[in-house]
C-alpha cells in the first residue's frame, strides 16, 4: 500500500512527530511504501538543522533524514508555514536577506498544493497532530 504522512506537531513538544516516525518505520517494515512525509503547522520544526537535543535523546531531524536515505521517502515542508516559523532553506534565506538558514536537503520547501496531490495519489494519508 502507498502511504503518506501529514505531521503537524513540533518535536520535543508533542508526541505527534515521534509517533509519526515510529509509524513510518513500522509500515516500511511491514513492506508498505512510504512515499512522502509532509510537515505542516508546527510540524515544520522537524526540518530544523539547528535542533540540538542532548546526545542521549533521539535527533528527530536526522531520524527523518535517515528514513529518506534508507527508503527514499520524500520530506516535504509547507513553505508558508515554515517561513513564518523561521524555517528557511539557503535560497529562501537569501531571498529574505537572512544571514543564516535552517533547512537543508533532504527536506524540501514546497506548497500546500503538494499535500493535496499526495492525498490524491496515496492509498492512505495518515495525520499526526498534537
Amino acid at each position, binding site marked *: 500500500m502507498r502511504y503518506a504522512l*501529514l505531521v503537524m506537531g513540533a518535536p520535543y513538544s508533542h508526541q505527534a512527530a515521534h509517533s509519526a516516525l515510529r509509524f513510518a518505520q513500522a509500515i516500511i517494515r511491514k513492506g508498505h511504501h512510504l512515499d512522502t512525509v509532509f510537515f*505542516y*503547522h508546527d510540524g515544520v520544526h522537524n526540518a530544523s538543522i539547528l535542533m540540538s537535543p542532548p546526545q542521549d535523546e533521539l535527533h528527530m531531524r536526522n531520524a527523518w533524514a535517515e528514513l529518506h536515505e534508507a527508503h527514499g521517502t520524500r520530506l516535504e515542508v509547507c513553505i*508558508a*508555514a515554515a517561513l513564518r516559523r523561521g524555517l528557511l532553506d539557503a535560497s529562501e534565506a537569501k531571498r529574505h536577506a537572512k544571514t543564516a538558514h535552517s533547512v537543508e536537503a533532504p527536506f524540501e520547501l514546497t*506548497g*500546500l*498544493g503538494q*499535500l*493535496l496531490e499526495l*492525498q490524491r495519489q496515496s492509498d492512505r*494519508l495518515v*495525520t499526526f*497532530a498534537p
Partner: protein
Amino acid sequence: MTITAATADLLVILRHGPYGSSWLREGLDVSLVAAAFGQKVSLMFLGEGVLALMPGQAKGAPGQKATAPIIDMLAMYDIDRLLVCSDDLQRMGLQADELCAAVEVISGENVSAELDRHRSVFNF
C-alpha cells in the same frame, strides 16, 4: 450511500476558534488551496470551531491577521457548504441565523455520515 461528485472531494474539519492558535487559519489555508486546485470542498465546524463564524469579529489575535475575512471569501472559492453541528451551537449559546455565514446545521449523529460522503478528510 450514493456518492455525488459535486460534494464528495474534500471535507476540512475545523475544531479551533479564531484566537489562541493558528489551527483555524492554517486549516482554512488548506481549504482555499484545495478549492483553487478545483476540488469541491466542504467545511465542518466542530466544537470551538463554530466560533470562527461569530459575527462582528474585527481583528485577529494580537499581532495576527483575522480569519473572519477568509470566511467572507469562501463563496468566491465556491466553498458554499459550511456544516455546523447543532450540539456545538447549543453548547456555545449560538443560533445558526446569527452566524456570519449561511450554514447547514447537522445533528451529532450525522457527522459520521458526512465523513463517509467525502472522499478525503483533513482535521484541524
